[in-house]
């Protein structure tokens, strides 16, 4: 496939916005996580443990997605840097630049 990368401030701006949204999402995640200490204020019953485990499980999933988002931002930055370096020299310098998914 043809390679396209627009080296512009737009990419840096996008990365910064993504980091900002990810931070905001992290705050929402933590509010969900912290909610089970609050739940104990109004509910203690046979389902308390199940409820807390469920919230915990949801939070862990959210946390993993946030880590993924941080990883995407890292890859965007790295890609931007690599393309910047490559554009200074020649596009052929991108040989050997590859992403291996850890999974």
């Amino acid at each position, binding site marked *: 496939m*043809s390679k*396209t990368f627009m080296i512009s401030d737009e*990419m840096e701006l996008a990365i910064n916005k993504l980091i900002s949204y990810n931070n905001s999402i992290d705050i929402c995640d933590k509010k969900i996580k912290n909610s089970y200490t609050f739940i104990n204020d109004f509910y203690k019953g046979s389902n308390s443990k199940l409820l807390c485990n469920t919230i915990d499980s949801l939070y862990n999933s959210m946390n993993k997605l946030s880590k993924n988002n941080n*990883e995407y931002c890292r890859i965007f930055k790295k890609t931007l840097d690599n393309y910047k370096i490559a554009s200074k020299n020649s596009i052929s310098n991108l040989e050997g630049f590859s992403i291996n998914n850890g999974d």
Partner: protein
Amino acid sequence: MLEIDLSKIDNYINELDKLIDDYENYLNNMYYIYNNIFDNIWKDNNSIKVQSNILDDNIRRKELVSKIKELRKVYKYMYDNYSRIGFSIKCNLDTRGNVLFKMNNIIESLNKIYHKYNDLGDIYYYEKSDMINKQKEELVDVIKKMSTLKSKINKKYDKLIDIENNINILISKIGFVKINEIDYNMR
């Protein structure tokens, strides 16, 4: 032990509504930026891999938001159903048998006293027959009230156990979302 204080739960549901709104807004904005990057800025073999993972994560995020909404339904169910019983409830559901056993003993004792009145035979010959009759009627009234109270308490226990069981079903339905953590090894 079951302890419910519903005075705080209504506020919490409102906070959760705001949290869900914020969450959805942040996610929409975030995926708009991702789309912009892959549509207009970055296209190569690597971008396809990253985009594919991001699209997959987006599906998982939406699943998570729907599960948070299901969690909200649990709190709403708690509020709607427990508020029909009371705004502050403290009850040890395990002691149900003991409480009902004691109430049965009281009713049984009252019935024994009532039968003693019956053993008196035709009370019209007694000097204070009117007073005895009145006491007997009052005793019948107390026995009826006690039986009604026992029945009401029994129904409350049934209701509380029913609500707890339904909450269990609602929470169990939420389940979990499996997320694969991305770890790019970029050269």
